[in-house]
């Protein structure tokens, strides 16, 4: 059964970081949800780490921690924003940034076209359904995300639900959880 994971790491006000990872089945229903409790670096750490702190917390601490804690091994992960793409060098899960284009359908379902001259990674478009616009995938490299191997999960899921919609749910869930006091 096809599945997709969705990862978001939020930078809340006051330099607080919080992340969530949700895995959905091919109907878009959640089968796994992990989140990190809000992480607030001290003033000393803010001073010592400087501008590298945000990137370090997002990628090496929260993002990496969530993916490693996930039990959905091998399931492709859709990232909420491009700051998370370097995670591809830290974890073994295939990662991508996904957006829907406004182009006309470009051919048969499953057709994939590479885009040239993309900085900071590789990009390709894929036709995931008959009548919808193609989706644009941005990946770190094809070692982390072998396209032929993982595009099928997106095709299976796109046949049932909007493959971008679960990202909104992750974000809304984190917004709800951020004010929750730890148990």
């Amino acid at each position, binding site marked *: 059964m096809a599945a997709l994971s969705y990862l978001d790491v939020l930078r809340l006000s006051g330099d607080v970081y919080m992340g969530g990872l949700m895995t959905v089945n091919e109907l878009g*229903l959640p089968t796994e*949800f992990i989140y990190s409790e809000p992480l607030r670096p001290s003033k*000393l750490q803010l001073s010592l780490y400087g501008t590298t702190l945000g990137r370090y917390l997002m990628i090496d601490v*929260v993002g990496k921690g969530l993916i490693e*804690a996930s039990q959905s091994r091998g399931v492709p992960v859709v990232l909420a924003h491009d700051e998370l793409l370097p995670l591809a060098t830290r974890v073994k899960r295939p990662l991508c940034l996904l957006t829907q284009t406004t182009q006309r359908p470009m051919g048969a379902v499953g057709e994939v076209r590479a885009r040239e001259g993309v900085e900071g990674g590789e990009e390709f478009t894929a036709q995931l359904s*008959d009548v919808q616009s193609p989706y644009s995938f941005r990946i770190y490299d094809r070692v982390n995300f072998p396209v032929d191997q993982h595009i099928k999960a997106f095709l299976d899921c796109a046949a049932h*639900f909007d493959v971008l919609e679960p990202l909104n749910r992750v974000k809304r*869930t984190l917004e709800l959880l951020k004010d929750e006091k730890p148990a």
Partner: protein
Amino acid sequence: MSADGDSGKDGRPDPRQLSASGLDESQLSAEDLQALHAAVVLRSAPLGMAAKLHTLAQDDLQAGRPEPIPRGAAPAAGAIRALKLRIAPLPDKVRLKRLNTALPTPRYRRDERVARALPVVRKRLIIGELSSEQEHALARGLREQFGVDLSGWRVAAVFAHVPPEAKGAIVVDPELRWAAFSLPRGLPPQKCQAGYYLVVLTETDVEDSAGKTRKLLLRL
């Protein structure tokens, strides 16, 4: 040793002679004498924030530029020892303190119920997203549900894959752009049935969205 290099029988300076420093060095031990000749005078800056080291070198003395210490005002031996303490070598060890700069590891929590509580949103299908087989199944399903009495109603929107288990918790956007549903608490997602479509019918004689609507789930 005096500034002019004369010395007595025991190597000590002639007590009758005063050194170029202007001090009577006859009462000083050899150690104190050596310290005096290598004396360092700390001249504090006006605010005491900085200090300047000045050594009374032998050539300074011979050049007739002794420190302005008045004759007869020889410091006591104890004072010279205090001076020696001031120029004691700096400590070669400092106390180091290591700050713990490691960031804390966040705690991760696993809770599917939180995610399941949020509604799942389905976008309205656009023309052509239903296959011809599904369109036939839709027409057949409507006939079975309403018989032939479908006059006055039209299919306004179709939303894919809305599980019948969520039937009691379906919300449709007034403008029919989306439909949202929540799963019943405690129902595992793998038990939800696939292939059910939410069909929204509206009255054909009412143009605005305030008209009556009917919703039904059909397996297409």
